């Protein structure tokens, strides 16, 4: 079990710089962690939190800056060195092998052995003690991880880190998939570890739980320290101000658009994982933004509307007509089109050509008795490649060879080619270059002006505020509130999304 020792900080990071090509992800960040402290690391998506933690773990090497563990210089070459140095990482996506038992997972990679034979008895005893120490005596060492709930899996990860004698634990969004009850138990564990002198870096978007569990906080913005202090001295508003305080870019074109008839109407819709049914309308010529944290129900709402996830209850109407509950092909016929947040896993068939990817959702115009008019289809694709300024060698080229921004434009071209009346866009600008981003904003504006209805999910508040007419905020599986974009600010969106209370 770890025990507190010296007065030196457990961790000290000074002037950490990390560049990826031309972009500076971290521009001289300072961060420190005292022994037996819970230190919250806060910031928007892309502020540099995960880059900083990857440097701490050894997964990335800094371009400049120094790190010390308990006063001793620390330069991890890879994550294994980091683990040996006492830095344990508990990631958002848990890294357990679900087919193996708790015992096998905890000892994975450093099985106790004597001449090649496993020696399990001693280590089992220690594991048992550790799990009991973590207030989880009910977790059996022989249970398969697949049979455990999310909360218990997290505890197994923590137990693994403790058995590694970690003096520093990094928890990245540990509560995002936990129930309230599991969360409370996790907080107990965190307090207990703190009492034992373990330093904990706590990353979370949920500010209220940060206030509940953390001692100190540091806010990053655009790869720099934007503030920090004792959590007890700071109000939520002050923290949010530190997180967002950025000027809105002039990236967002907006032509006058007048909302027309209701083109999409969602009534008492409830997807499988949603906590409560939701209702809202989208009019022609309107962009409705869906804000919220990852996992708050935005993506699920889009997928349920599109028929990719089954609707537990409720109806969806397109242009006043109730769409028979159903599969994506029914919804496509009704005029809907979805751009997936998972561009490579779902959005595009990477080994297929641009032509195939753009036209797959509407092959009918090129088909006679099931036979395709190849040249005409290719011309149509070439036309969209031109109009969206997609950098590709030829319509026959496989999509896999394009850059991220150009791939995303192919995915958008599909919806345009499909002549969708209701566009469901899930993080359409994530991970793409600024040029492609601004083109996508331009097209969204143009589509709205043409009288289409758009739903726009984004985790980046400035673009929601810049592009949308109205913004709906989701929190923990349900729709919190819908308001005109003019009534929102970044601070208010952040407050609503993180606290579940709209001010």
């Amino acid at each position, binding site marked *: 079990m770890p025990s507190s020792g010296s007065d030196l900080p457990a961790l000290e990071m000074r002037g950490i710089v990390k560049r990826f090509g031309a972009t500076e992800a971290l521009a001289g960040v300072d961060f420190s962690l005292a022994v037996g402290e819970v230190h919250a690391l806060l910031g928007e998506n892309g502020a540099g939190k995960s880059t900083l933690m990857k440097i701490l773990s050894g997964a990335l090497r800094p371009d400049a800056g120094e790190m010390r563990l308990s006063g001793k210089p620390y330069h991890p070459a890879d994550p294994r060195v980091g683990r040996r140095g006492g830095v344990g990482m508990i990631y958002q996506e848990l890294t357990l092998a679900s087919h193996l038992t708790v015992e096998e997972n905890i000892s994975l990679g450093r099985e106790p052995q004597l001449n090649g034979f496993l020696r399990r008895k001693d280590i089992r005893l220690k594991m048992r003690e550790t799990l009991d120490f973590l207030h989880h005596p009910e977790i059996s060492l022989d249970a398969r991880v697949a049979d455990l709930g999310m909360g218990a899996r997290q505890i197994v990860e923590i137990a693994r880190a403790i058995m590694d004698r970690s003096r520093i634990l990094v928890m990245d969004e540990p509560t995002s998939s936990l129930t309230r009850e599991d969360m409370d138990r996790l907080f107990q564990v965190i307090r207990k570890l703190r009492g034992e002198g373990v330093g904990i870096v706590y990353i979370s978007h949920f500010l209220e739980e940060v206030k509940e569990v953390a001692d100190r906080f540091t806010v990053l913005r655009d790869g720099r320290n934007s503030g920090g202090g004792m959590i007890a001295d700071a109000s939520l508003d002050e923290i949010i101000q530190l997180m967002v305080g950025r000027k809105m870019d002039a990236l967002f074109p907006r032509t006058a658009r007048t909302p027309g008839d209701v083109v999409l109407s969602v009534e008492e819709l409830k997807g499988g994982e949603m906590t409560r049914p939701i209702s809202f309308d989208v009019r022609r010529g309107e962009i409705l933004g869906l804000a919220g944290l990852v996992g708050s129900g935005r993506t699920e709402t889009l997928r349920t509307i599109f028929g*990719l996830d089954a609707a537990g209850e409720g109806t969806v109407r397109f242009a006043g007509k109730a769409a028979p509950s159903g*599969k*994506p*092909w029914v*919804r*496509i*016929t009704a005029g809907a089109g*979805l751009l*997936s947040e*998972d561009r*490579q*896993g*779902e*959005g*595009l*068939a*990477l*080994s*297929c050509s641009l032509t*195939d*990817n753009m036209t*797959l*959702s509407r*092959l009918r115009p090129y*088909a006679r008795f*099931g*036979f*395709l008019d*190849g040249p005409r289809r290719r011309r149509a694709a070439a036309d969209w490649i031109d109009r969206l300024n997609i*950098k*590709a*060698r*030829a*319509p*026959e*080229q496989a999509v*896999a*060879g*394009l*850059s*991220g*921004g*150009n*791939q995303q434009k192919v995915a958008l071209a*599909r919806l345009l080619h499909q002549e969708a009346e209701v566009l469901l866009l899930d993080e359409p600008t994530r*991970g793409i270059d600024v040029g492609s981003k601004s083109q996508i904003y331009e097209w969204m504006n143009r589509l709205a002006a043409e009288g289409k209805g758009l739903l726009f999910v984004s985790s980046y508040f400035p673009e929601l505020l810049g592009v949308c007419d109205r913004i709906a905020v989701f929190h923990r599986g349900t729709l919190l509130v819908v308001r005109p974009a003019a009534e929102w600010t970044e601070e208010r969106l952040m407050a609503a999304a993180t606290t579940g209370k709209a001010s």
Partner: protein
Amino acid sequence: MDRRAPDGGGYNRKGILTMKRAGRLQPVLNLLAPFLGLILVILIFSLMPEVQSRFLRGANLKAVATQSVIVALGALGMTVVIISGGIDLSAASNIALTSVIVAAGVNAGVPPVLALLAGLVLGGLIGLANGLLITRLKLVPFIITLGMMGIARGMAKWFAHNQKIDAPLTWLNELMAKTPRPSWLLLAPGVWLMIILAVAMAVLLRRTVFGRHVFAIGSNEATARLCGVRTDRTKILIYVLAGLFCGLSGVMEFSRLTVGDPTVAVGLELDIIAAVVIGGGSLSGGEGSILGSMIGVFIMSLLRNGCTMMGWPNYIQEIIIGVIIVAAVALDRLRHRHAA
């Protein structure tokens, strides 16, 4: 992915036109490896002094073509299945079962046409069962068709009481005759049927909506669903099609043997899969072509034929074919890495 953003300079200099041609050439390039393999096999045997006089003779090639029919028909269906990202391990059992049913029909005095149709329908039904089970139970095709492999083989043995079913000679047996009647046909009717169906399947895969859907499902099923492709329905159709080809292949098997044998074609599904893979089909889906698979079939038939003529024992053939499968797929990997 993002690192491979097209560098403006490169493709301005080369010009759009030439690049476009490179795009169109892609399918041809894909077939380069199997085609070279085919030429290599022909070259080797036509240079062997022991067989060179007989190997490239019309009569011999005719025999090779006839021997290829059964595997080739199976490979036509298997190609579609493999492009869609699936596999059909029940193919050979299906062939054996239909050959038994056709033999029993002919033996019972049913008109040969009806026996043939019964064989096709049965093959199609087995494919339908595969497709329905795969889509309804949401299990991987490997498992379902592995089960069906045992079920169909067992049914064939049960139905035939574990012995061969004799049948009187009818025109069905001329489908695979070495010397066709009338003689102006040059090749056995079964060979012509194989050629016609291969062309039809190539058109189906390359030029129809169904074909695009097959490739899309194989490349990324989630994308296909997102684009409104009725993935379940398409997959069922794919397995029915594969089953129909096995049924036809079973008819040809009966035609060749003139009896219905429930123990025939054991392990043939692996030959069929090997042919598709040698021809550029990817077991992870999204890739493959009819022409490639047919080249794969002929590489294997020519090898068998050449080895037999050389008087080499069976095991040598098996070793060579094993090496070719590994080499073909390794070459394919290499080509892909270069393309990427």
